[in-house]
């Protein structure tokens, strides 16, 4: 079986990596990563905006942000894909490539989820921070921009990486609307070989696992860094300057951060 897997990979590695590019659209792993990266990169600013709306002093903003989040949390991603797939061409009057459909879907869906991550980060900061900013005369937005968000976004970095891992897994659903990504490439190979589904989809699973596992390790590493920073910058200055209490505090913060 190992030789067969090796054979499949050596025959099809280019297809798995970049799809039919340059003779066709970019696909394979490259498309999966591009879709996930663009998805999370565009969803992030959207998520920050939704989070700010959800914590805004204006009730209208608050309730529309809350509604959006509840809708997105309450329906499966596949439904959102179908909605965008069938509705967007009707609205703009022409067909949209599958890649763009999937990207739009991911941005909306992940934006809603990321906004909850960002909101948690904002609300986890001590109330004294906003008090201090307001007492100095900062407006709500100015306090958010210069005092609250820089701290909150740094603290939620690990969660954002975790959300990126979820996004990579969600891109597989692009398969149902023929987005040429990694799962699509594997299924093309399977259709061609016909008799080796176990080997093909094992290869697919291994690739996803390696990528997602490495990113999860990155998130864990970031989480330790963030916890150390939260315990006090002295921990990052020099190991020699760290007293025993600082070390213990760092451990506590790590435990809490888990």
């Amino acid at each position, binding site marked *: 079986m190992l030789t067969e897997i090796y054979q499949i990979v050596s025959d099809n590695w280019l297809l798995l990596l970049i799809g039919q590019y340059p003779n066709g659209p970019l696909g394979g792993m490259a498309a999966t990563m591009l879709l996930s990266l663009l998805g999370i990169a565009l969803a992030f600013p959207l998520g920050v905006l939704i989070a700010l709306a959800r914590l805004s002093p204006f009730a209208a903003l608050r309730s529309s942000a809350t509604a959006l989040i509840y809708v997105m949390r309450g329906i499966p991603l596949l439904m959102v894909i179908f909605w965008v797939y069938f509705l967007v061409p009707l609205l703009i009057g022409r067909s949209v490539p599958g890649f763009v459909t999937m990207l739009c879907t991911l941005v909306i869906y992940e934006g809603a989820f990321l906004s909850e991550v960002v909101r948690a980060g904002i609300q986890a900061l*001590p109330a004294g*921070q906003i*008090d201090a900013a307001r*007492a*100095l005369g900062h*407006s709500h937005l100015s306090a958010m921009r210069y005092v609250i968000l820089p*701290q909150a976004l740094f603290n939620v970095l690990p969660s954002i990486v975790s959300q990126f891992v979820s996004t990579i897994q969600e891109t597989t659903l692009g398969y149902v609307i023929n987005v040429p990504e990694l799962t699509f490439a594997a299924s093309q190979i399977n259709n061609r070989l016909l008799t080796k589904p176990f080997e093909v989809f094992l290869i697919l699973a291994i690739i996803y696992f390696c990528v997602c596992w490495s990113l999860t390790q990155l998130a864990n590493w970031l989480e330790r860094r963030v916890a150390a920073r939260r315990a006090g*910058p002295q921990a990052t200055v020099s190991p020699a300057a760290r007293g025993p209490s600082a070390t213990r505090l760092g451990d506590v913060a790590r435990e809490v951060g888990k």
Partner: protein
Amino acid sequence: MIKFSHVNKWYGDYPALVDINAEVARGEVVVVCGPSGSGKSTLIRTVNRLEEIQSGELMFDGQNVHAKMKGAQLNHLRSRIGFVFQSFNLFPHLSVLENVTLSPIRINGVDRGTARDKAMTLLERVGLSSKAGAYPGQLSGGQQQRVAIARALAMEPPAMLFDEPTSALDPEMVGEVLAVMRGLANDGMTMMCVTHEMGFAREVADRVWFMDAGSILEAAKPAEFFSNPSHPRAQRFLSDLRSH
């Protein structure tokens, strides 16, 4: 400068402030003392409207603090009232210098160079110019509180409020913060301080307000208050302090 007239505040059914009538004159130093839960912190937080009041009137430098006003107006008013917190509340992601320069630059539109020079002068004044590049987490509590005072002074407020500025400090650091406050008082700053430091009250305050259960029971000169308090609750409070 700061004038309370019939100020009342409730948390639900619980009366937090009861018919407060008092005044801090320009250049005066008032120390607010009393047992915990007596409303001292609530009182001081109503002055820059971190807490709302339900009735009465609170004037700051001729302006009605709790009148209906635009957000920008309230922000401007707050920028003119220095506030120092018990828990320092420095911004941990910014260096000491950036903590002090952030608000003058972002709120008052002061240019970076001027803000920096001003900040260095203020840090010099609180004895921390050598720590300008440090981060709050690298400083002791007393140093953090002195930076917090410099940060508040950077907005050039005509009055400063202190909400138990030394209560979160180790005993050996209380002195350095009180020394900075004493310096401010000597320079003629209008100050309202909630504190348990009776030595500071005796020495620096022009008047002492004694609070219990949301009311100001006694407002007197410190010499008078400490030697001959008129209200029985104040007498008990002081004798409890002395017995320690």
